[in-house]
């Protein structure tokens, strides 16, 4: 799997009801800005961007309250046809919480428009003017080998334009760096000679100095072109036909780059990166695999990939982005990796808020924002689990949640490409911000809400199956039995031959459970063994589950399956045991939650339970049953 920024793949795909949701937006509706923001965060094509523009214009001219979107008026002055770019801009800007209106000055009249106070450009008041000028306007179409004149000429032409504009308006400008066709005149020797195609680098340095001197902003088109590849960025066909300044499939990414710049100017950039742990900062599940079992660090490709994720987080911290942890884990277990794993780049002192518990992530993310005294709209969540991402998007739509695919080596590129942390300045305060926030991995108090998870679980489209142990899955079953520590009621361990013996033991009733959802297949994730007793009951000898599927009612479905099987055998009741260990505290109330009654509680923490089948009422569960 490769990552191509041109596809904006960090955005979720457009849902089927996109058009209807735009149409349904009423001028007097509360929160229509919020809905626009959500709709802008899908991977829209140019036609959908057009639909978005119309809805935005309708709402704006009707006087709708567009908050939390911040208004911005942008005028564009260009030597090219920028209408298609203008089409793509409002949706891209809304993604970065800017309600944008765009005015385009007439095509290819750059100086006339700039210098005439009565021109279209100046008649429309603006918060910024984008100078969308390419190498052609700057006279860089033809190389002049051996002479540095054309760069001097280009910069003086640009300076003349800036002077002219400064004489007419005070509006801040956005200057663009320039991308040229990558085709050299000589070859590699172009780098060694003045006046060749490569002197565009000198031009860009000059443009950036001009912007700095005069307090203007920079839109780094040269880097954008480099990112997607200059051969792809330039499209001679549509330039020749229509004077489009870049290939049409690059326009959405260009628009997003400009949108995030406008967001940064308006102060809507994100401030804090919230990181999941298992399979996001390291490979593996620390609760099950243990510290030694984690894949992290030099020596394995996967381990190095996760190292790079941590390195990016550290780089971001050093430029003033706050780091927080949000993970479903035992806190002590999670922290042990930060304290004791020799390959960890991140340490507790790098983390401002450290949330590791079994409560829902949305409540934890709210707790992080509260503890830092910033809005949830200042947060970005990096999480490998598609279901968690979907839940956060549904519960807290203003948190930025990139889709990151399943290749950890691409995570840093994707997080960077999404442009959440765009800035227009870098100060000493930024440098020390993360330190001033750091309360050494502070644990924030969670006000867990009773969220209605019903719709969310339904939306996962889960398919579950329960079947008896068999030869094919024997080794996976034995592996689960021997390595599950957290969701494990009795922590009894059985070898593979012992598991094999159970397959034909008529007194043993065994269950292996598989789960999949619309994000993928979890495979075999839970195991249960019940043993027939002489008194007409079944005793639950073993019950364990992978923590990856917590909070999805899998245990209810397993109990359903067990009760149904017991009923077939005319069993009157079930008995069960909770045996505490250092690691299985999370299931100490498992049987209580499922409606079992306590019949005996020993001093050692061991609790015996009973469930009369006549008392059992099955629940409505969010699964398709696959028999």
């Amino acid at each position, binding site marked *: 799997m490769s990552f191509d920024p041109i596809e904006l793949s960090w955005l979720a795909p457009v849902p089927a009801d996109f058009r209807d949701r735009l149409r349904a937006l009423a001028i007097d509706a509360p929160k229509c800005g919020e809905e626009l923001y959500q709709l802008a965060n899908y991977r829209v*094509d*140019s*036609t959908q961007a*057009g*639909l978005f523009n*119309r809805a935005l214009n309708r709402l704006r001219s009707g006087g709708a309250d567009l908050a939390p979107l911040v208004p911005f008026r942008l005028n564009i002055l260009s030597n090219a*046809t920028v*209408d*298609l770019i203008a*089409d793509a801009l409002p949706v891209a800007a809304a993604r970065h919480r800017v309600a944008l209106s765009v005015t385009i000055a007439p095509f290819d009249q750059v100086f006339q428009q700039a210098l005439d106070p009565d021109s279209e450009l100046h008649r429309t008041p603006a918060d910024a003017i984008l100078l969308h000028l390419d190498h052609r306007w700057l006279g860089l179409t033809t190389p002049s080998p051996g002479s540095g004149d054309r760069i001097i000429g280009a910069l003086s032409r640009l300076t003349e334009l800036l002077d002219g504009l400064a004489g007419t308006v005070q509006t801040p400008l956005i200057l663009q760096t320039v991308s040229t066709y990558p085709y050299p005149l000589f070859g590699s020797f172009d780098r060694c000679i003045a006046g060749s195609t490569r002197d565009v680098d000198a031009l860009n340095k000059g443009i950036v100095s001009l912007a700095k001197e005069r307090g203007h902003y920079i839109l780094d088109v040269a880097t954008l072109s480099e990112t997607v590849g200059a051969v792809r960025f330039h499209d001679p*066909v*549509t330039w*020749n*036909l*229509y004077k*489009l300044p870049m290939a*049409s*499939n690059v326009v959405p990414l260009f628009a997003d780059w400009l949108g995030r710049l406008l967001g940064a100017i308006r102060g809507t950039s994100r401030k804090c990166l919230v990181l999941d742990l298992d399979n996001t900062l390291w490979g593996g599940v620390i609760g099950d695999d243990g510290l030694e079992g984690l894949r992290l660090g030099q020596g394995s490709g996967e381990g190095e990939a996760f190292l790079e994720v941590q390195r990016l987080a550290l780089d971001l911290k050093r430029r003033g982005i706050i780091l927080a942890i949000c993970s479903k884990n035992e806190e002590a277990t999670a922290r042990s990796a930060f304290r004791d794993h020799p390959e960890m780049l991140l340490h507790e002192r790098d983390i401002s808020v450290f949330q590791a518990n079994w409560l829902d992530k949305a409540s934890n993310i709210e707790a992080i924002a509260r503890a830092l005294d910033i809005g949830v709209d200042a947060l970005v969540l990096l999480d490998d689990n598609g279901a968690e991402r979907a839940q956060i998007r549904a519960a807290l739509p203003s948190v930025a949640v990139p889709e990151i695919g399943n290749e950890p080596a691409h995570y840093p590129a994707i997080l960077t490409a999404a442009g959440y942390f765009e800035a227009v300045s870098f100060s000493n305060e930024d440098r020390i911000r993360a330190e001033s926030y750091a309360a050494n991995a502070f644990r924030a108090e969670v006000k867990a809400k009773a969220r209605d998870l019903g719709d969310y679980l339904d939306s996962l489209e889960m398919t579950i199956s329960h079947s008896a142990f068999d030869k094919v899955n024997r080794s996976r079953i034995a592996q689960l039995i021997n390595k599950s520590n957290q969701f494990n009621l009795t922590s009894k361990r059985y070898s593979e031959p012992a598991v094999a013996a159970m397959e034909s033991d008529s007194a043993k009733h065994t269950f292996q459970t598989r789960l999949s959802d619309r994000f993928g297949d979890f495979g075999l994730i839970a195991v249960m063994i019940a043993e027939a007793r002489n008194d007409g009951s079944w005793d639950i000898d073993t019950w364990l589950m992978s923590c990856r599927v917590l909070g999805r009612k899998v245990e209810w479905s397993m109990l359903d399956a067990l009760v149904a099987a017991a009923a077939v055998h005319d069993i009157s009741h079930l008995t069960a045991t909770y045996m505490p260990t250092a690691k299985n505290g999370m299931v100490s109330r498992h049987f209580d939650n499922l409606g079992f009654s306590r019949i005996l509680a020993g001093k050692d923490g061991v609790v015996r339970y009973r469930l009369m089948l006549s008392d059992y009422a099955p629940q409505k569960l969010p699964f398709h049953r696959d028999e």
Partner: protein
Amino acid sequence: MNDQDTLKKVSSLIGDLLDLDELTLTRETTARDVEGWDSLAHVRIVVAAEQAFGVRFSTGEITSMKNVGDLVNLIERRSRI
């Protein structure tokens, strides 16, 4: 995809771009027959069609396009390759 499907898809695409509900085009329809189909709209239509059908047209093909039927034929020919 047959001709009829392509024509339908092209119609709804152009309807979306020009903000005309229920636009019905025939193969003989030309830009002159449709409200708002000016030269800029034409650029939008060509670019959106390339995106929607995942094809690229050549300079010569775009320049010689005379009516909706030409566009549909081009898309059909390209999608078959």
